[in-house]
C-alpha cells in the first residue's frame, strides 16, 4: 500500500506541473485569444474610434477628423433618433409581454409526451424556422386591408378590419403581431423543457399538502422557472431590438417613421447614408441602452424568488 504523498511533495508536484504546462497553455490559448480579440474587440474598438470621427463615405474616402462627442450629441438631439427609440421600446416591450405570456401558457397547454402533444408542439414551432424577411412578406399579404386574410376573417365575424399598415398605430401593432407569431415558439420550447425538469415529488408534496394548482404554480413552479424565464427574456429582448429584416419587409419602417426602430435607424445611417461616424455613435448608444436593459433583467434575476 502506498503512503499518501506529503503536502510538501504535493506542492512541489503542482509547481512542476504549472511550469511544465505553462508553455503549452500559452501555445494553445494565444490563438484563441487572438481570434477573440480580432473578431470581437477590434470591431468594437474601431467603431468606438469611428464614433468620434467626422466621416461620411460619400464626402470623403477617409475620416475627416476627430470631433469628440459631437456625433453623440447630434444623435441625442435628433428627433428621428428619439422616435426610433420610442418605436423600439413599444415594439420590443409589446412583443416581449405577449411572447412571454403566450409562451408560458402554450408550454403548459402542450405538456406531455403523447404523439398528439408532440405533433402540436412541432406545428407551433414552425413560424420560428421561417426566414424573418419571408415572414414579413407573408404578413404583409395577410394584413393587406383589401384582400388580406386577417381582415377577411374579421369581416366574416362582423368586424371591420383596420388599415393595418397604413396607420402609425396599425403598423406598430402589425410588427408586434409578427414578432409574437414568429418568436412565441422559442419561449414555448425553453419553458416547456424547464417545466419538464421540475422534480415531480415537489409537486406531489404540494398536492398532498392541499395546495391548489394555481398556488403550486405561483409558489413552486414559477420561482423554479424564473431564472430561465429571465434568461429567455434577455434573449428575446436582444433579438427583438436587433430585428431589421422582418420590419424591412413588412412595413419598410413606415408609414413615415412609424416603425422606424433603432436598428433600422442605424442601418439607414450607415448603409444608405454612409454616415459612418453618426452610425457608430448611434450603435454605441444602442449598446448602452441594450446593456442597461439586460443589466436590469439580471438584477431581477439576483432577487430571491
Amino acid at each position, binding site marked *: 500500500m502506498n503512503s499518501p504523498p506529503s503536502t510538501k511533495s504535493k506542492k512541489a508536484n503542482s509547481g512542476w506541473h504549472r511550469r511544465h504546462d505553462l508553455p503549452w497553455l500559452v501555445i494553445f490559448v494565444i490563438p484563441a485569444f487572438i481570434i477573440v480579440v480580432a473578431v470581437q474587440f477590434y470591431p468594437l474598438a474601431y467603431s468606438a474610434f469611428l464614433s468620434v470621427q467626422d466621416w*461620411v*463615405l*460619400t*464626402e470623403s*474616402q477617409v475620416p475627416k477628423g476627430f470631433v469628440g462627442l459631437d456625433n453623440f450629441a447630434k444623435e441625442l438631439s435628433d*428627433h*428621428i433618433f428619439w422616435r426610433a427609440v420610442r418605436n423600439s421600446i413599444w415594439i420590443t416591450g409589446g412583443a416581449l409581454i405577449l411572447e412571454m405570456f403566450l409562451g408560458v401558457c402554450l408550454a403548459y397547454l402542450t405538456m406531455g409526451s403523447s404523439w398528439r402533444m408532440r405533433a402540436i408542439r412541432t406545428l407551433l414551432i414552425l413560424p420560428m424556422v421561417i426566414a424573418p424577411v419571408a415572414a414579413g412578406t407573408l404578413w*404583409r399579404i395577410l394584413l*393587406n*386591408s*383589401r*384582400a388580406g386574410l386577417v381582415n377577411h376573417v374579421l369581416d366574416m365575424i362582423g368586424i371591420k378590419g383596420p*388599415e*393595418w*399598415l*397604413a*396607420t*402609425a398605430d396599425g403598423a406598430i401593432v402589425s410588427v408586434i403581431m409578427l414578432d409574437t407569431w414568429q418568436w412565441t415558439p422559442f419561449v414555448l420550447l425553453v419553458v416547456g423543457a424547464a417545466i419538464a425538469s421540475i422534480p415531480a415529488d415537489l409537486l406531489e408534496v404540494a398536492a398532498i399538502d392541499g395546495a391548489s394548482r394555481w398556488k403550486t404554480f405561483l409558489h413552486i413552479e414559477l420561482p423554479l422557472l424564473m431564472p430561465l424565464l429571465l434568461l429567455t427574456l434577455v434573449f428575446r429582448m436582444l433579438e427583438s431590438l436587433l430585428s431589421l429584416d422582418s420590419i424591412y419587409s413588412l412595413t*419598410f*419602417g*413606415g*408609414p*413615415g*417613421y*412609424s416603425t*422606424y426602430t433603432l436598428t433600422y435607424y442605424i442601418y*439607414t445611417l450607415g*448603409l*444608405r*447614408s*454612409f*454616415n459612418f461616424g453618426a452610425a457608430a455613435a448611434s450603435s454605441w448608444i444602442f449598446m448602452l441602452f441594450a446593456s442597461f436593459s439586460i443589466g436590469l433583467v439580471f438584477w431581477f434575476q439576483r432577487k430571491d424568488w
Partner: protein
Amino acid sequence: MKKLLLVTLVLLLALPFTALAQDQPHAGVEIVTNFMESGTYDIGAEQLEPGFEEMTGIELEIVASPFVVLVQNNITDLSTGTGEFDVISGDFWIGSVWNQMHPLDELMERDMWEPNIIPGLMLPGPSGYFDGKRIGIPYSADAYGLIYRTDIFEEAGISADWETWDEFFVALDALDAHLEGTDISPNVFAFGAYEQTPAIFLGMYDGYLVDSEGNYALDHDKAVAALNQMKSLLDYNPEGATGLSIDEANSVFLTGKAATMICWVSFVRADAQNPDASLVVDNWATAPFPGPGFPFLSAWNMFISGLSENPDAAWEWVKHYINEDEAKRRFVELGVGSPFLSTYEDPELIEQYSHDFPNMVHNLNRAESVPWIFAAFEIFFRHMGEFVIDAVDVETMLANTLADWSELEVPEGLVQSAAAQGQMQEG
C-alpha cells in the same frame, strides 16, 4: 529549303490568329459589369454575354444585385478605391461618386459612336455628366406615367388631354360623378409604397430642388401647394389607398376597379394586355403626365469606373449592350423601356402599342431626374409619409424635411445636374 518551307507554313498558319488578334485587341482581358437584379436588365446582359465574349475575346463577369445593394456596392467600390467594377449601372442615386467616373466623350468621338437615343435623355440629368463631360449613357428609360380606361372615358365623354394637374382634377370630378354608385374609383395610386409618393409631388411642383447656395431646398409656397394637391388625390382613391403597395394598386387597375392610375407604366404594361392577368385588355391607354412639374425619370446609365484598368474593354461592352436592336428586343421580350427613338418609330411596334407609345414618348421627353442622394430621398419620402397619414401637418412636414436636409451635402455632380435641368434656385 525545308526550313524555309516550314517557317513559311508556320507563318501562314499563324496569319489567321494575327488577324484575330487585330479584331480582338482586348482578348483575354477580364471586366466586371453590374446590374440591378430585376429579371430584366441583368437577364438582357446574360443573353448578350456569350456573343460578346466570342466576338471580342473579353471575359465578362456580370454581377446582379438588388437595388439597394447595387447602390451600396457602387458607392463603396468607388469611394474606397476598391475598383471591383469596370462598368457600373446607376443613375442619380450614385451622384456622390460621379466625380470618379471615366469621361466618355473622347471614346464616343474616337469611334464615331452616336446612339439614336431620345434627345431629352442625352441631356445632363437623364444622362450622367460631370464638369461638362459625359460620364453616363442611358440604356433604359421609364417615366412616371398616368394610364386610364378608354372605355370609361368614352362612356363619360371625357377626353384625356389634360396638361396640368388642375385639368386632371376636373376630369377626376367628372369621373367621380359618372362612377357614382359603382365600385370603381376615379383614380388609384400606391400611396402605401411611401417611396413612390415623391413622384406625384414632383409632377405637381415646379419650384427648385437645390437653392442658390447648393443646398437641398424647396420653394415653400409651391411645395405647400403641391403637397396639399397631392393629398387631395386621396379623395379620388379607393378606401385604404394609403396602404396600397405597387402590386396592390396595379391589381386595382387591372381588375377594372379604377378609371385612372398613376404608376410606372413599365410595371403594368405587359400584364394589362394579358387576358390571364387583366380585365382591361385593349381598354386602356397612356395619358400625358400632367404638369407644371415633370414626370420622374428612371434612366439607368452605364458608367465606366475611373478605377477600371481596362476602360477600352469596358467601352466595348457599353457599346455592345447599348444598341438599337438590343433595346427593341429587351422592350419586346423583357418589358424594359427603350431609350432609343427607333423603338418608338418601329412600324410594327407602333401598331401594337398605339395606345401607349405617343404619350410615352411625350412623357419621356419631359421627364427629369432629381438631384437627391439616397439620404435626401429617404428624408423626403418618410416625412411625406407622415403627412399622408395625417401624423403631421404640411408646415411641420416641410420644416422637418428642411431641418434634416440641412445636415446633408449635395454632391457636386448633382448640383450640376440640378442646374442643367432648371431645378436650381436662381440668383
